[in-house]
């Protein structure tokens, strides 16, 4: 079985851990979804910036509705598992939740290796916990 890597707009680099998370043969894709970009409020400047970024990446670009396109790609390649970068963006998470596929979320390299403090609200409460790690390479002790 092969895996499908869905590269979304928040993980656009070839060294993202997403690309080394699977030992199976993979196809990597970016879905150019006009409706998604409209919902995110992206104008021409941002869209050109994103497309230019995609030119250098080892991904196939398809245009269309993200969910429908990913479903069709998975069906064509007999894929049952999709890998995607972890994100706080609810639109992207909703897409992952709506897919009839096993979805594996792969986290970005952490800035600081610490759990999310409960009830985050003010920066300095976070910073007081994070600053020791923030000045360490890879954010770890």
């Amino acid at each position, binding site marked *: 079985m092969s895996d499908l890597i869905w590269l979304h707009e928040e993980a656009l680099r070839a060294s993202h851990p997403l690309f080394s998370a699977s030992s199976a043969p993979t196809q990597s894709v970016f879905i150019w979804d006009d409706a998604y970009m409209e919902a995110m*409020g992206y104008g*021409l400047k941002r869209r050109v910036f994103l497309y230019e970024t995609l030119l250098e990446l080892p991904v196939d670009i398809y245009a269309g509705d993200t969910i429908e396109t990913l479903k069709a790609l998975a069906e064509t390649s007999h894929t049952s598992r999709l890998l995607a970068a972890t994100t706080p963006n609810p639109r992207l998470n909703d897409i992952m939740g709506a897919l009839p596929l096993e979805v594996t979320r792969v986290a970005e390299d952490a800035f600081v290796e610490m759990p999310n403090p409960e009830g985050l609200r003010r920066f300095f409460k976070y910073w007081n916990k994070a600053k020791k790690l923030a000045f360490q390479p890879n954010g770890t002790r």
Partner: protein
Amino acid sequence: MENQPKDFADRDALLAHVRALSPSLSPKDVQVSDTVGGRQAGEKRLAKIDPIAYGHSRNYLGGAVSYLSPYIRHGILSLNEVRNLALKAVPQGEAIKPIEKFIQELAWRDFWQRVYQQNPDWIWHDVEDYKTGFTPDDYSDTLPDDIQTAQTDCAAINYFITTLQTTGYLHNHARMYLAAYIVHWRRVKWQAGARFFLAHLLDGDPASNNLSFQWVASTFSNKPYFFNLENLQKFAHPQAPCEEADNQALAGSYDQLAARLFPYGVSL
């Protein structure tokens, strides 16, 4: 399904293709930034960062800012690799104080993403009440035309709007000035300002952008952020036109401006 092309004769050809793939774009949206996307362009900028100079000049429009934000926003560069490189600006074993502000600014991005993760519904809703003496209903839902067209009566504000629209980038201090002007001088809902920024900024991020707007508005902070002409002249000259005659609405002491902008008093 058709695999989209990756080879283009030039940027104009790429631009035409992006437009063809983007039927939702307004025909009036024609501006493209000089900032080029991609890892190679991001790495070029990364090689030029000066975290120490950043620490003492970052608040000035002409300061040694990194311009990495669009690349970080889309994961083209990771916060981790930027931090790791910044650490090399001070020899091992020496005090990290000179690069503290640079690292802290990266931490702000991490902080906003964590808040977003915990509370995705905060992105478009008031987290707290306004502390401006006004209620949300006192603020307009839409951005006035003179702001959209950079025709306000403040030359510096018009400069910031034009810069945003043409380059897709604004210095952080200029973002604060423009956001404060929109929300407090013009009494426009922060959401309208946030949408305007997201439409133009290459680095516009729902969390960093919208929660910062809420910080300015006071719906995610203890008091509204505002500024006066003296502050603007200190940090934005000579990049922005800061003459008093061209920016009269911004002139005055902080007490005078607070009385004008928040006549019912600021609730703390």
